[in-house]
């Protein structure tokens, strides 16, 4: 599959074949060797099943020693950011997955400052990337920017809570938001439909920009188009997470065992877990691109505008200050000269006056 020897420009089999059609394969091989990086942030109140879902999605155990604090401890806690990285390999393809968790979000009685920490974390990652990108050695830039944010919506409410709306509005320009309805086994199918519709309505009402799946290209095959259509219709995804193997109908499935039945995690009729996973996997590249092209560029232009002005201001300030100082110096010199003149005049005048007076007198 490698390119032909440069000396031979013509493939004996196909006249006119140059061979650069192999380029994608080369890129593919290079990137496979390099590996992929992906950063996923999960945000939501405690107890919505975020950690379980992440473990189910990637079939790993990202949180082996987990201590869940009690309510009294939660009262004093502020939002923290915990990033855990795991390297997953599948069929030779390496993925370096970083999951950014936000324990403490939504716990406090007063949640006004909940998301400040999160926003500053996202900005920090952008800042670091910008700094690296503008630096001298650009070979090994580590991309820690948040590519995707799963926002967990509680299934117990009647739609979005005020906190949800406020948070999403604050970060929809910085990161791709994928709203996820957690613990979907709480809802019957009808309730689920109603909740999804309600959430979509509220998102539209508040002009929140969530991540939209790109439409399938017209030259893709029908299956893919159909799949994309299905995915788009199911947003927000209502998921159930579990890593326990339950025996159901003779086979072992991952699921949750209730007295009234078994909820299967990978059954599309029970929940949208498979859809979420498909979306994440097939669109990982797209998520990264949108982060790079849209959010990062937004950030960069904002930052440079702000940062540029600051730098110029400083230079200008220096000059200005110099100029000002010189001007002040001149002014002061003038003043001194004037004062001196005045004093002299006074003295002379005084003398003169007295003299004059005296003379006159």
């Amino acid at each position: 599959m490698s390119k032909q020897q440069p000396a031979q420009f013509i493939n004996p089999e196909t006249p006119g074949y140059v061979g650069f059609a192999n380029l994608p394969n080369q890129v593919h091989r290079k990137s496979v060797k390099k590996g992929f990086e992906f950063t996923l942030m999960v945000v939501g109140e405690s107890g919505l099943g975020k950690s379980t879902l992440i473990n189910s999605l990637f079939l790993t155990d990202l949180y082996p020693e987990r201590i869940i604090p009690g309510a009294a401890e939660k009262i004093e806690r502020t939002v923290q950011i915990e990033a855990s990285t795991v390297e997953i390999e599948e069929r030779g393809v390496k993925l370096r997955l970083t999951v950014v968790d936000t324990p403490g979000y939504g716990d406090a009685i007063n949640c006004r400052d909940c998301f400040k920490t999160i926003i500053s974390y996202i900005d920090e990652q952008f800042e670091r990337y910008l700094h690296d990108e503008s630096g001298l050695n650009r070979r090994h830039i580590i991309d820690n920017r948040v590519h995707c944010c799963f926002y967990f919506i509680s299934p117990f409410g009647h739609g979005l809570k005020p906190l949800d709306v406020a948070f999403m509005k604050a970060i929809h320009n910085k990161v791709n938001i994928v709203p996820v309805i957690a613990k979907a086994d709480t809802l019957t199918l009808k309730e689920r439909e109603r909740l999804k519709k309600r959430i979509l309505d509220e998102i539209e009402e508040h002009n929140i920009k969530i991540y939209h799946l790109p439409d399938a290209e017209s030259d893709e095959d029908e299956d893919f188009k159909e799949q994309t259509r299905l995915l788009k219709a199911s947003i927000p995804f209502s998921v159930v997470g579990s890593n326990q193997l339950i025996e159901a109908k003779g086979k072992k499935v991952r699921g949750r065992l209730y007295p009234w039945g078994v909820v299967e995690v990978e059954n599309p009729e029970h929940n949208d877990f498979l859809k979420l996973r498909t979306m994440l996997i097939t669109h990982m590249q797209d998520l990264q691109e949108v982060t790079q092209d849209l959010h990062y560029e937004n950030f960069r232009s904002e930052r440079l505008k702000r940062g540029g002005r600051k730098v110029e201001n400083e230079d200008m300030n220096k000059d200005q200050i110099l100029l000002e100082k010189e001007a002040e110096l001149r002014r002061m010199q003038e003043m001194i000269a004037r004062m001196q003149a005045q004093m002299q005049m006074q003295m002379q005048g005084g003398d003169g006056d007295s003299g004059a007076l005296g003379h006159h007198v």
Partner: protein
Amino acid sequence: MPGASKHLYPRQCSLAALTRSDCSAEEEAGSWGEVGCPSPPHSPILWVVRRSRPVVEPMLVGSGLLRAPQVSPACKNTHELPELDRLRLFLGLPFRPPFNIPRALCVILGLPETRSDAAMSELVPEPRPKPAVPMKPVSINSNLLGYVGIDTIIEQMRKKTMKTGFDFNIMVVGQSGLGKSTLVNTLFKSQVSRKAASWNREEKIPKTVEIKAIGHVIEEGGVKMKLTVIDTPGFGDQINNENCWEPIEKYINEQYEKFLKEEVNIARKKRIPDTRVHCCLYFISPTGHSLRPLDLEFMKHLSKVVNIIPVIAKADTMTLEEKSEFKQRVRKELEVNGIEFYPQKEFDEDLEDKTENDKIRQESMPFAVVGSDKEYQVNGKRVLGRKTPWGIIEVENLNHCEFALLRDFVIRTHLQDLKEVTHNIHYETYRAKRLNDNGGLPPGEGLLGTVLPPVPATPCPSAE
């Protein structure tokens, strides 16, 4: 209290008389038109405190079960001071103003009690109204020679209750969407609460906590109940939920105030409309982790003013292990933080109550419930439940959720007790506080024991 003992027995039968061992157990059955009675199988039992002795002994009065005043085993507890203090607490502090007993007793009418006589060591103050029938001193040790008909009092009282009906006020608190209205509808098997699921887009989450009280009259077996459901939309839904329990606390105290004003009136109604909150169901979100800080704060503030029953909402989110783990953790957290939910340990009246309530407190509470008002066909019968692609969750199936336990607890066994604790403890605490704060009573009431007929006086202070 000067003169209090005189008021104890309208017939001027002083406590001293009662201390005679061959005692004039007073058969006041006929006069006790409005006395509270234990469960129908037992005869009317009247408990009297004999304060001349340091030991508090029960005396059985009434037909059929007259016995010598024995120190029942449970009595031995009363030798310990704490028990006595508990008693005092339950009966009322020595200097507390008299109970308004007729109303309290009205409250107790006719409903089945679960006490038996054997374990009665605690005493209920029964300041009595004027007896309609002259008392006949009957010696305790003798058996009746024939049927007298004293036990018909139960029937009489039951008839009276059925005619007058009774009030019950239940408040539901919790974040929106936890299924409060559905649960209340399921509890009382009727549409007493308008469900928020029918909210359309115009109805948003209110910016502050609102209090909405809706009253219904439901009837069952000839007994009328005026049920008021007090909803608190907006609780815990904002970004900043600080002090969101204050409107609720204010509302509860307002109801106490209303009752107090009525009670203290010179010309007061025969039956004061009771709008006090008897029971507050607090809905805990089934996160599976622990209580939320808001839950803790709310319960800390309100467990002193109202009976709080914590309930785990939407319990079909959790598997059995998760459920038991979560319940354990919640119980522990409540204990560690000193939150006394109903049934409060300090108000257990006797050993039997204590064991029963202990069992409930340590094993069943908080109840993990599922509510539903839709019916489905399961195994040939129609059940209330929720239909999911993986099965039907039956609301009244104990293997699925604990709704049936909650219902039995609130309605079938402890309804009466809820009202009593509210009246005798929470209301009296509020009243004492108010009177102490004001340094006296609002105009219209004189001091203890001297005002409006009937004037009940607490028996305890007389012996001090």
